[in-house]
């Protein structure tokens, strides 16, 4: 079971994510954004950072990288893709996840610990973590205010596609949304950083629980079953 972590110019959580997926029991490999080849990985993580300096809009320039064609094809085949922070922004800009991440309502970069509630346990990203579980992990972003049109938000709620919600909304996200999944269920994104909460030395290993779910789901070849 191998997890590939995309590296864009300006990614800065790539090696943290690599370290964390290894803690979660997977092999890991960094994937350079100029290559449209995923080297046969089973799962792709788009890590946090400031791809292309966040120029124009966070995530938009990374969206047109060669690797994103391969990521889109991987997702279309039912492969698992997780975007963390800037990776979530890239997936939203690429249209692989609904909505957009706007400038924080406070206009400030927020970097602090937050508590999120797991809303669904019937996803490959949260399997084994009962719905209602509270997880602590850090956020660090300037553009994390989740936005989608009302009709989209209603559909997300109805279809159980809101995966995580903030207890203490740090950025003005609509309906306290911290993470969502795609209609097909195999692509997800969240603003908090599970890889920065992956071992007790960092304060908690709550984040590792998410990564273990992801690795476990992929390892059990359940990915296809999760695609509705």
């Amino acid at each position, binding site marked *: 079971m191998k997890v590939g972590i995309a590296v864009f110019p300006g990614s800065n959580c790539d090696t943290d994510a690599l370290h964390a997926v290894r803690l979660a029991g997977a092999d890991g490999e960094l994937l350079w954004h100029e290559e449209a080849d995923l080297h046969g990985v089973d799962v792709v993580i788009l890590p946090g950072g400031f791809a292309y300096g966040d120029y124009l809009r966070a995530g938009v320039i990374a969206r047109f990288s060669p690797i994103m064609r391969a990521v889109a094809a991987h997702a279309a085949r039912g492969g698992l893709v997780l975007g963390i922070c800037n990776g979530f922004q890239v997936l939203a800009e690429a249209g692989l996840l609904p909505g*957009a991440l706007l400038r924080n*309502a406070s*206009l400030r970069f927020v970097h602090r610990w937050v508590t999120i509630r797991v809303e669904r346990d019937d996803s490959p990203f949260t399997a084994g973590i009962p719905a209602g579980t509270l997880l602590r992990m850090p956020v660090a972003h300037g553009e994390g205010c989740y936005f989608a*049109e009302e009709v989209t938000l209603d559909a997300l709620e109805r279809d159980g596609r809101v995966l995580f919600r903030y207890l203490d909304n740090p950025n003005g996200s609509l309906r306290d949304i911290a993470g969502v999944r795609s209609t097909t269920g195999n692509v997800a994104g969240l603003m908090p950083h599970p890889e920065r909460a992956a071992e007790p030395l960092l304060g908690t290993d709550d984040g590792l629980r998410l990564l273990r779910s992801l690795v476990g789901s992929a390892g059990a070849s359940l990915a296809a079953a999760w695609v509705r």
Partner: protein
Amino acid sequence: MADFRFAVAVMPKAGILDPQGRAVEQSLPHLEITGVRRVRVGRRVELTVEAPDEAAARAVVERLAHELLSNPLIESYAVELVGATSSIRVEASGAGRAEGRP
């Protein structure tokens, strides 16, 4: 061929929270300015397109504005032609097209 200079104005859509606009509004009392409302902060991008005619140039800019410069979910854009000049090429004999554009 000619060069067409465009300006693309990208603005947050109505109804989208614009914290930058709100911050500007909140600063107005410090300047003792009154009567200013509905401040919205957007972005202006200027660019030059080489094309046979304005319609062809505009089509390129529209695609760029829709796919890259704006996110249609949260932003609208307006394309404005701000100037055009005929391209002047140096056709030195034997030099072919070696005289690249800058």
